[in-house]
């Protein structure tokens, strides 16, 4: 059964490692290069998710409160 809900509970086995991997991927990049990397990463992950409904929920979740940042 495919998931039709965004997972908002812990789902990564080693969260510290994954977070460190995100930061490491940006090391030594300019702001412009980092922006490009982020955009590519989002596109790759969106394709991996493959479910437009989950993507929509993720976009709503990410957008919530962002204007107060």
């Amino acid at each position: 059964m495919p998931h039709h809900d965004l997972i908002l509970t812990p789902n990564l086995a080693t969260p510290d490692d994954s977070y460190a991997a995100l930061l490491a991927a940006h090391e030594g990049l300019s702001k412009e290069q980092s922006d490009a990397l982020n955009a590519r990463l989002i596109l790759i992950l969106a394709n991996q998710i493959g479910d437009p409904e989950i993507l929509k929920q993720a976009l709503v979740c990410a957008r919530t409160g962002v204007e107060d940042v």
Partner: protein
Amino acid sequence: MTKNFEAPLYPYERHADQDAIRPRRHKVLVVGAGPVGLAAAIDLAQSGIPVVVLDDNDKVSSGSRAICFAKRTLEIADRLGVGHLMATKGVEWNLGKVFFRDRKVYDFNLLPEDGHQFPAFVNLQQYYVESDLVNRVRSLQAAGAPIEIRGRNRVTGVAQHRDHVTLTIDTPDGAYSLETEWLVACDGAGSPIRSQLGLDFVGRVFEDNFLIADVTMEADFPTERWFWFDPPFNQGQSALLHKQPDGVWRIDLQLGWDIDKAEEKKPENVIPRLRAMLGEEVPFALEWVSIYTFQCRRMARFRHDRVIFAGDSAHQVSPFGARGANSGFQDTDNLIWKLKLVLDGIADDSLLDSYDTERIAAAEENILNSSRSTDFITPKSEISRVFRNAVLDLSEHHAFARPMVNSGRLSLPSVYDGSALNSPDHLPTGPARTRPGAPCPDAPLGDGFLLQRLGGGFTLLAINCDAPAHLEEAGVTISGLPLVTADDPSGAFAARYLGAATAATYLIRPDQHVAARWHRFDEAGTRAALRRAIGKE
């Protein structure tokens, strides 16, 4: 532009209407002798309805303008007698290449489906299309059809009345007036008729300028569509190269917003840009240059009582996707059979409201696709440029990103899902592409093709089953067309119209859209579906 198109094709001639004491009353006037207006007039004349086309000019359009004509347009044009002329003269293409900065990121093939009379697309200068249509008008006239074109007849005033419309028309001999029962306004994006009636035309303005140039050259560029994002010869912008007949190439260069248009159009500024694009060693001659900006917008309604708008006067899109002229042909294809039924007293004039519903839905679809292409081609914010470039970079190495590259989503005919003229689908296991509301896809049949066999009226297609040769209902004759799938050894006809079913009947509208379908001949159902399709149910 090719020299033989510089002469007036329909020069001004004084008409007896201009000397009439009281304004003469016509059945249908078409304003605008562009592709859409001419197509509308030919369709009417072929149905025996008298029609006059008024145009402020007297010759075909200058410059190539609309160049990309889709299969559906060729099919419509075939019914109007010019489909083969267009297909033969046009340049057929299937391959496209996408470049990003200094490299090719990928290529694509339109992979047209087999078993169609016409190709997916041909490139052909608009002046050829108009010239073919004007020649068709001449041959209809020679055969006694009630059609005429009045050149240099500029409409300066229009007023609606209960049962007619009055027009004031300016000519080289001064002004005169005409009355008409129906007015079809095909007078382009800047429609004077729309302005004179004070009607809205709202939408989104894209703050960008495009230089569009026709050049002739003997070059080795293949017959492909080449699209560049951010190329070295036009940094930060886009470019398009597309082949037309007669060794003419269409080049589009994005210029940005803050430019001096008059300055950019000068050959001394255009030629260095083109040389940088084509290569220093390639000799070329500049035929035509224009600078355009575009908007994606439509009228709130296309029908205003007895004035009906079709083509660019009703809706406007960006050129990416070739959705301008192609959708205009679909407008008139949708409108004219309805107008004929109303003029013949068979249908109530409310049938024309279905033109509004069906073609507004189509315009929305075209505007959506066109706006998305434009947002990809000309990113309007820093973040949209970041995503756009990420898609292009990824597309070079990974297939998943290629469907997101958007240099134009090419025009396909709209399906009129949800139209009040459709009947419920009684062949639910049949192919989705031929569901009620869909345009009939072509298919091979014996030595020819299916669409050639559909007449100009309502047809009852009976596939692997019997149906009567004629059925009269509500003043309309439905012509039965019995066919067997064995007539197409390729299996395409069966795949497109039967799917898992073994037999089917289809009620097909005069514009070749499916009104209803069943798994057998259903006389009561066919009669009810016909009444529904002409707005009587």
